[in-house]
């Protein structure tokens, strides 16, 4: 099983080969409700840990997506621009938002593993 790490603000990073896939957690999509719009960053853009790199809108709410660690965008999931509802149906799978390169792997230590995220008071 691939490694998956979480933030307190409900983003995840899923490891696949040398890259990481970033998105919002299943809990986050459920809290937001029907997602109607996603604003994604540009490939090549770099963000520091905590920077807002994308926006997710549901019918009633707007939420920023933060960079869990300092990272560079390799590729974005542009299919979400026409089908943002995929985040509702498969947030942690085909609903990924960006494929990223982690700049400083040491920063991954600050993130939660599955057990810690499950135990977190949401």
């Amino acid at each position, binding site marked *: 099983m691939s490694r998956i790490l979480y933030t307190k603000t409900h983003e995840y990073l899923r490891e696949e080969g040398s890259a990481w896939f970033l998105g919002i957690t299943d809990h986050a999509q459920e*809290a937001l*409700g*029907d997602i*109607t*719009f996603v*604003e994604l960053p540009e490939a090549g853009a770099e963000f520091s840990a905590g920077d807002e790199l994308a*926006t997710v*809108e*549901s*019918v*009633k709410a*707007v939420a920023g997506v933060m960079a869990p660690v300092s990272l560079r965008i390799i590729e974005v999931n542009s299919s979400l*621009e*026409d089908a*943002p509802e995929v985040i*509702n149906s498969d947030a942690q799978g085909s609903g990924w938002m960006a494929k990223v390169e982690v700049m400083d792997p040491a920063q991954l230590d600050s993130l939660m593993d599955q057990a810690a995220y499950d135990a977190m008071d949401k």
Partner: protein
Amino acid sequence: MEHHSVKHTALHTRHVNLGARMGEFAGFMMPLWYSSIKEEHDAVRNGVGLFDLSHMGEFFINGPQAFDLCQYLTCNDVRRIGDGQCQYTLFPTPEGGTVDDLIVYQQNPESYMMVVNASNIDKDFAWVTKHNRFDCTVENQSDDYSLVAVQGPNTDALLEAFGFKNISAMSQFTWKRTKLHNRSVILCGTGYTGERGFEIIVANEDAGWLWDGLMKVGEQFGVKPIGLGARDTLRLEMAYSLYGNELDDNTSALEAGLPFYVRTGPEFIGVDVLRRQEQEGVTRKVCGLVVTEEKRSAAPRHGAPVYSSEGEDIGEVTSGSFSPSLDKGIALASLKKGYWEPGMHVQIEIRGRRMNAEIVNLPFYRKPKKKSKS
């Protein structure tokens, strides 16, 4: 007595058991959605939905001059309704603002009910009491009554299956006190969705009976419980005003784009300002906007600035959302004079970016015409 704890409606446990996402609204813990705002929205447009609106306020006005008090407090003309009818109206202030919007129900000229917004119950009751120069009895029974709305094209079938007689013969904006299964019910042909529907008012102790019965009988009609999220998208598609957004203490009914509900024949509180606004025109008015970006875009939200095609600041969004029926962003916006014509192009600033939008005729949503039988 003033208290700040969050109130629960009589149906609170049922919402929690249905898995609703709950949130605070107007001092009440209310269901925001159960399954999904879009699904609930579609259920009301195409089937039937049940809303717990027990947070709404109910006032009862009685006395030989009850008609005079209602006429004095509101800007619509109460003479236009008869016994068993009701009308949408507003409480204007003498300065040209609005205390609240509401529905006035006439039982007879000596007896009325008012249904007011939950967020304004205390303010409204103080207002009505303060201006009661006609010696009426004014009772605020908001805490004693629950309100369940049934809305959608399958409403009549559901209510008749539940036991109400001749529902399909009842017109919108009529109401009656009746009994069902030996319980007292106030049955009102009103709603906030643009669909055929009723709002049913019962004593709190009968709320569970009503809700459970409608949910059970409604299974065959695909009934769904509907949260406040879909209530807002449904009302916005119809361009119905929401107090606190389109209307407030500084905005008149005319500035909110509601001239149909302003009848300045009779005298009432605030009539002078409204007569002047009718003669001279208003300088800002609530209009409808549809986002016209080719790609999917962010939805306009309350407070977003609006600019003319020349870049002039012309007003701001009062209510905005993604519209499930139209599959695009829609907004009501208070715009300055000169920018009210349908077809005009404007821009809405959303998170620092200006989106193209167009002024449109209201409502945003019109029911598709029924196919004629071939």
